[in-house]
Structures are given as C-alpha cells and as structure tokens.
C-alpha cells in the first residue's frame, strides 16, 4: 500500500489538452473520487496513475518514489475496468488467480489467497463459473477480487458502478466502502456521478477541462464550494450574480443577498450560491432568516424523498427543496415567503 502523488501533470492529444498542470495527493489508505463531466480528464489521470499512459510533463510518485517511467506491468496496481474485462475463457477462480500465476506464486498459496479474496467479495461459492454465467454485480465483484488479490499498492476503479442498475449500485456503494476499509488499500475511482462520489469517497477531486478545479472532503466541497462549477456540478444550486459590498451581493433588481464568509472586494462583480434544500418556506409568525424573498409557485417536481418547487421571484426563478416529512407543500400559483441564512449563501469565484 502506498501514498500517491501527482505533480504538475500535463498531457495533450494533438491540440486537445486532456490534463493541464494537475497536482493532487492521495494519502495512504484513503478513498478518493475523481469527479467530472466526460472529457474532463479524470480517466486520463487514472490511466496515468495506472501506467497505461505517460504524462508529457510532471511527475507521479508512489511512497515518494518516482514511477512515471515504470511500465504498467511493473507498477503493482489493481485496476477494475468499467466493463470489468474478465477473461472469458477462464473460470472465476482462474481469473482471480491470474495475477498470482504470472508472478509465479506457489499453487498452495495462490489457492489460499484467491479463496480469501473471493470470500472478501462474498463470492466463495462461484469459483468454478465462467464470467458469462455471472450477473453484472457478480462480475463486478470478481473484477474487484482479481485486482485486490495481488496486494496492489493502489486500487484504481474506472466508473466502477456505471454498468449496474440503480438498486445494485446502492448495494455496491456500501460494499465497495466496506471492502476498501477492510483492506486499507489506497483507492482512487473515476465517476461522473456526483452522488456516487459524495457517498463513497473520503475526498473528491473535481476536474473540468483537464484542470483540477477543487479538492476536498465531500461535505466541504458540497456545502462550501469555491467555484461556480463545483456549486452547479455537485448537486443543484441557485446562483445570484451582482455587485459585491460589505453585506453581500446586490442584484440588478436592487435587492441584496446576505452572504457569510469571504466575499469578493466591494465594488466588484461577484456571485454566490444557495442550495435549494437550504431555503425554507415561512408563514405567519415563523422566524425569518437574513434573506427573505416573496414569490409565486410556478410548478412542482415530486422526487419521492423531496419536492422541488420552482418559485418565480421578479425576473428570477428560485428552486426550493422541500423534504417529504409529511408537511403541506404549497400548491401551484400560491404566493410564498422564502428565507435562508447568510451562512447558507456561499460566495463563489468565477470560472
């Protein structure tokens, strides 16, 4: 097991900059998500840590040792592919044993380690099956066991849950987290699904256009995003744009949105974000917070655990998340008073 550090990595394909001066530290035993839309460079970064591709400039270190010129087969990493890439002609046991066989591990030891790995992923009884006789979730577990059994320095997963249906995906999220914690292997996975990144990872690296936009714990990056991109890509956000001053940001309509925390210098244009679930609907004697606006409910979107209200306020539409806790949800056309704390309003840097 090892810590991994990428330092100032750049990689171009023709005129396309896949990675642009990216630096990130992956602590020994940590669970990391590389999150971003397609074309953001997240997979390129993963493939570079694995050794499928080499950076044009920059360094990759494992435990402080430079590895960027070490070929893939000598890097001792465990890789799980999006389509699992199980060897179709080999049984489950043989698939998992492959990495030990090519290392010349003795037969007895191989058998013990394969059995242990299959137990870890709860597939003990299926070792004689061929990959085509397995379900998607089982294939995923075999791929995981095959990658773990070689005691890799780092475990790399490319969109590990992308091919599974929703219910299975939730199960596997819990499973992956358990397996990662039990083995303690430094793990990096690539995903375009923000929910997956938030639930599984200890830390998230957010990428866009080949650049690392933000890096931090899921709570940090979700509650206090620093950039417009982080605010809108991770979950939903109401964005307000205007002139910055001591109180907050004054919109074109003349209203001022109270903002807590570090704001852009007074007199400059700035923007801020507030998550829909941080906005409350108040009526009568209920206490109002720093920000208060009135509006008319335009439409509602029921999503099971919550309802999103689209509230028209002057020229603007504000999205409000109302948790489904049995309270009455305002009807379409109803006038409502919205309120939220300055604490919940996050100042953002422009991209």
């Amino acid at each position, binding site marked *: 097991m090892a810590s991994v550090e990428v330092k100032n990595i750049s990689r171009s394909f023709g005129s396309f900059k896949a990675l642009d001066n990216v630096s990130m530290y992956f602590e020994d035993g940590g669970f990391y998500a590389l999150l971003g839309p397609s074309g953001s460079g997240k997979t390129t970064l993963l493939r570079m840590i694995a050794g499928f591709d080499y950076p044009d400039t920059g360094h990759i270190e494992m435990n402080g040792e430079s590895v960027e010129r070490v070929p893939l087969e000598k890097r001792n990493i465990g890789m799980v*592919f999006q389509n699992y*890439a199980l*060897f179709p*002609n080999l049984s489950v046991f043989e698939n998992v044993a*492959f990495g030990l066989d090519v290392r010349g591990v003795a037969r007895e030891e191989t058998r013990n380690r394969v059995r242990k790995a299959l137990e870890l992923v709860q597939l003990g009884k299926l070792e004689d099956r061929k990959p085509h006789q397995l379900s998607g979730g089982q294939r995923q577990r075999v791929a995981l066991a095959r990658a773990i059994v070689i005691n890799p320095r780092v475990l790399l997963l490319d969109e590990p849950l992308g091919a599974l249906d929703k219910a299975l995906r939730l199960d596997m999220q819990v499973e992956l987290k358990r397996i990662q914690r039990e083995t303690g292997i430094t793990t990096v996975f690539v995903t375009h699904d923000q929910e997956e990144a938030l639930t599984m990872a200890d830390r998230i690296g957010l990428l866009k256009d080949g650049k690392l936009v933000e890096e931090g714990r899921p709570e940090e990056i979700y509650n206090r995003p620093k950039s417009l991109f982080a605010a809108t890509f991770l979950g939903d956000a109401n964005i307000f744009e205007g002139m910055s001053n001591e109180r907050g940001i004054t919109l074109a309509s003349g209203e001022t949105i109270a903002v807590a925390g570090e704001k852009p210098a007074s007199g400059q244009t700035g923007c801020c974000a507030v998550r829909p679930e941080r906005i409350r609907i108040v009526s009568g004697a209920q206490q109002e917070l720093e920000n208060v606006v009135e509006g008319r409910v335009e439409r509602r979107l029921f999503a099971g655990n919550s309802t999103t209200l689209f509230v028209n306020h002057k020229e603007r539409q504000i999205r409000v998340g109302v948790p489904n806790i049995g309270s009455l949800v305002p009807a379409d056309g109803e006038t409502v008073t919205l309120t939220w704390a300055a604490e919940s309003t996050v100042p953002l840097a422009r991209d």
Partner: protein
Amino acid sequence: MSKTTRFLSALGRGYVVLLLAFLYLPIFIMGLMSFNASPFYQLPMKWSTTWYEALSQDDRLVGAALNSLQIAIITTVIASILGTAASLAFFRYNFKGKKVLQTLLLPPIAIPWLITGTAMLVFFYGVGIGRGLHAILLGHVALALPYVIIVVNARLQTFAPELEEAARSLGASQWQITRRITLPYIAPGVIAGGLFAFAVSFDQFVVSYFLATPGQTTLPVEIYAAIRKGFTPEINAVSTIIIVISMALMLFTARFYKFGGNG
C-alpha cells in the same frame, strides 16, 4: 398462418431443396458411379470397389495425393502462424502505412489465380526459386495468407482490448498475455483460418499447374493430366475421397466458426 404465408413458406422450402439438389446431385452421382463396375456408367448399377482397388495400384495418383496432402498441411501450419502473427500486429500496434497494408491484403483474393500463377512462375524463375514442390508450397502459403489474416482479424474485432490491458495491469508479460488470454480467445478464428488455408492449398489447381515439374506434382494437376489421356472411373474414386475429406473439414469448421445459421 394465413393462406398466403403458408404458400410462400412452401415456396421457400421448395427453393432451398432445389438449390441443394443443384449443388449436391452431380457430386452424389459421381460418388455413386465410383462404385459402379461398368466404366461406361451402365445402369442398373453393379456394385463394385474395382476403381478404388485400381486407384491404390496407381502410383502416380497416390503419389500426387500424398504430395497434395503434405503441401496442404505444411501450408496450413505456416499460413496460420504467419497470418495470426500479422493479425495480432494489426490489432495491437499503430504504425505508419497500416491502413495501406490492410487494404492491400484484399486484392490478391480477387485477382484470378491464372494471373497470380503466371506472375509467380515468372517471378520464381527470375529470382532462382524455379519450379517444383518447394515453389508450389511457397505459392500456396502466399495464396492462403490473406484468408487467414481476414478470418483471424474478424475474430479479433470482437476481442476487447481491455482484456490485454487488464492482464498487463496484473503483471503479465506480452508473451503471457498472448498465450493465456489472446490466443485462447481467437483460437476458433485461427482454426477456421487454417482450414481455409488447407482448402485453398488442397483444391489448388492453377497455381500448382504452373509451378509443378513433370515428376513432382499435386493431385488436381495429376487428375487433369489423367483426364486429358482419357477419363477412367478411377478419377471418380479419387474425387469421392477428396470430397469426403473436404466436407468433413468444412463441417468441422462450421461447428467452430458458426458459418451461416446458428449453432
């Protein structure tokens, strides 16, 4: 089923029966006549294995048949190995001129063997290879190679490159990957390609005819020479043996490669 569908389905079945009759009837009759004692195809047939006995006494035909078999087997082995290696190179590497090379593989299949044969004769004569069994073998390998490459290549199209990447990430060397992952996967393609090579060589007349020397020849060339001297039912006998071997090979291939139809 409506009346029209029933009629059309009967029509379709009838068509297939006619087609198969057209293909197999001449062969069937030839096989039958190889067991007819009369050299003039007299009916009713008198069952006999005379012509097979005569064939076994015919050193020229038997010798040519053994030559053919030997050349076909060696051609199969060489063309399969070289062709598979070439397909893997096309699959794994990107190099300058790859597209051109791949495209150039197709025309030799379309060029008439008569022309290829003439060209080979002139070329082999010019560079000192000359004629004989070794020249025939060389020519057959060249003819068979494109078939092997195309068939193996088709199989490789369904092979996910991630499988080789996964094997590499697990620490396997290029040779271990090829032997344990890639070759087992493309084996049906290699076998099918090999059988194609065998068929191209074993059935080859034109190129062999150009490159053969009088004493050293292959079965199709010898049959042609025999027919020119006068047709004997011995030819029916040897043809029947060849057909049985060829059909067995093709059915074997079909099982491996699922040519047309499923299963």
